[in-house]
């Protein structure tokens, strides 16, 4: 059984699956964008100076700030 980690701690290009989201206000917005538990998530790259982060979730691209993505917990695949 793989342990969960924050999406911000993922290595670049390492595929993962969303396990759950912390119950914080930003989580609602992320869910509404389709970043839901069991979605496939990849951290693709980081912007200049390390933030925001570029994610693929379910084959779609999203830009999330470090603090926003930190509420997503994933298991590596």
């Amino acid at each position: 059984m793989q342990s969960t980690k924050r999406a911000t701690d993922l290595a670049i290009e390492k595929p993962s699956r969303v396990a759950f989201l912390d119950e914080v206000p930003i989580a609602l917005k992320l869910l509404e964008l389709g970043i839901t538990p069991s979605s496939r998530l990849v951290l693709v790259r980081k912007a200049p100076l390390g933030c925001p982060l570029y994610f693929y979730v379910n084959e779609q691209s999203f830009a999330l700030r470090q603090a926003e993505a930190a509420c997503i917990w994933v298991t590596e695949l």
Partner: protein
Amino acid sequence: MTQIKSVQIFLVGNPNAGKTSVFNRLTGLNQKIGNFPGVTVEKKEGRVALTDGSFCTLTDLPGTYSLHPKSPDERIVLQTICKLADKQQQNQSLIFYIADLLNLERHLLLLSQLKSLDLPIVLGLTMADLADDKGYILDKDKLSEALAMPVFLLNARNGDGLDAFKAWILNTRTDSLIKKTTLFETEKLAPDFILELKTLLGTDSAYFALLKAQHQDYFLDLSVEQQKGINDLFQKYGQTNLTLQIQETLGRFARLAPLVRSCLLPTKNAAQVGFSGRADQILTHKLWGTLCFFILLLLIFQATFDWATYPMDAIETAFGWFGEQVRGLGGESIWANFMVDGVLAGLAGIVVFIPQISILFCFIAILEEVGYMARAVYLSDNLMRRFGLNGRSIVSIFSGMACAVPAIMATRTISNWRERLITLLVTPFVSCSARIPVYTVLVAMVVPAQSKWGFFNAQGLILLGLYMLGIMTALLAAYILRFFVPVMDMSLLTMELPAYKPPVWANVGIMVWNKVKDFLWEAGRIILCIAVILWFLASFGPADSLEAAEKKIRAEFNLKPQTEEHLSDMNNAIASERLSASYIGRVGHFIEPAIRPLGFDWKIGIALLSSFAAREVFVGTMATIYAVGSNDDGSNIQTKMQKDVHSDTGEAVYTPVTSFGLMLFYAFAMQCMSTFAVVRRETNSWRYPIMQFVCMTALAYLSSLLVYTIWG
């Protein structure tokens, strides 16, 4: 029952669903952009021509991901939708829901919320053409049955499917559309809590009651007792908004996921990295992406200023010609003067900016259409955030190079009020196109046109420096404002990066047209009014002081031989002396002591004062003051200005130092009534525009003072 063609249709959907394209396709130029009452949320309304010659109204609601609002735009959607859900209005309206077939599951979340309010809805699916390429097969009838609503496949690019929709409107009645389905059982979230809420708010609809309770601040029809009752119920059942909303969203997706899987069948594995992914490997790359962004900026900048000169010259020539015709008809009568020097001069001052504004907004529209703007926001968010701004501020700062008025209106996409406020307060520092004519005249006083610094043209470098100065000052001001503007709500970036797609040219055209209309109306009417007032102040003076001034000059010149050269000199001297004696001349003399420390004289004083209406007035005022004839061009104003001396000391007025100080003054001062008006409207307060005006003008004064004291 009501026929659909006589009801109002609302376009609803997520951002990037293709709503704008559908709206533009259905209405064409039959659209009106205004504001929702009391708020600065854009309201787009239009008329759709139907095949039987009748029309129906279409309203484009702002794009939103759900009915739980996080910005003013989304709040309007909630309020509008809930008004429709009130039973009395139901027969009067229809929702045309636009969803992207390629991201169907996510796009159906909002639809499922709307369905819980038992509204009449029709679904339009965009990107149907791309679904084929991606290997998806849609079972349209099955989807239509599961959602209990008609489904149309649309292609906003070529308009496919919209004719079918229009034909359908003609033959359908609203009541036939309200079919109950259970996509989601709201009650199950918290049965007793919701039951009590329904009784308290006197409604049958569980979801309607829940929405009202969760967003009670946005419903003005709630009584004080109801508000108290809602809060008591939240306490009694230990419920919180966030938990309920998260559970609702998860619950809805749990129902939608199998539904979508059963209707939209993949025939092959979707490609991992499509075109957009490959393009983003470069365009959002730390190094290459940033480089591309700057090259793009330079390119747009160059194009805007280079290409625009031709239509601008043409416009000036046309107005000049038209003025001559009026002169020919009216001679030197007061009406001809009013028309030529007041109205036509004012109009020319507005129209001449249209080329630059259109070209710049054409680029901005294309970048938005293509999907690049979101990448620009992604690349600049970090830098912007350090200055208290948002990645989205880059769009405003960028547009500010054309005109601050539409740029300030573009801040509406920033959901965080603090970041939005700071953005709109600092945007006027960015050098807009109105500063160019002023800089062009003044830069010639500092260095001659031919001089070079290294390989570069010296004048060009100074101009570039002034632009950089504007952007730096904007960022610095934002940094300082951070400490004064309180943090009110969460700062968010969370943004979808839509797939790249070729632009829909009709959308680009319509956006440019709307921006130009905005500028003409918002800025144009003020510039025109001020131009007319200025003309009045410059043409009249107390009692017969103007006539006295004219007589004095004539007496001086009568002693000299009556050659043609002398006659024109005399006319120029008369114009100049009349101006000095006019109302505005008196004001100029009055304020001279205040600006003398900057090395400015009363003539510059007049130009400064009149420039507070709009800065480009400077050149026109200078032309009037230095009384150049109608057939002279800019270089002659410059020669005359260079020869001018202070009447008391005999020193030249336009030394490089004063000219440079004057440029700084124009770079910093908020000399634009339209900007003032638009900030007043967007912030809904007098405090911010007044503060902005005072601070910017003080900075302008101090920096000119500094330059003059140190180098002067």
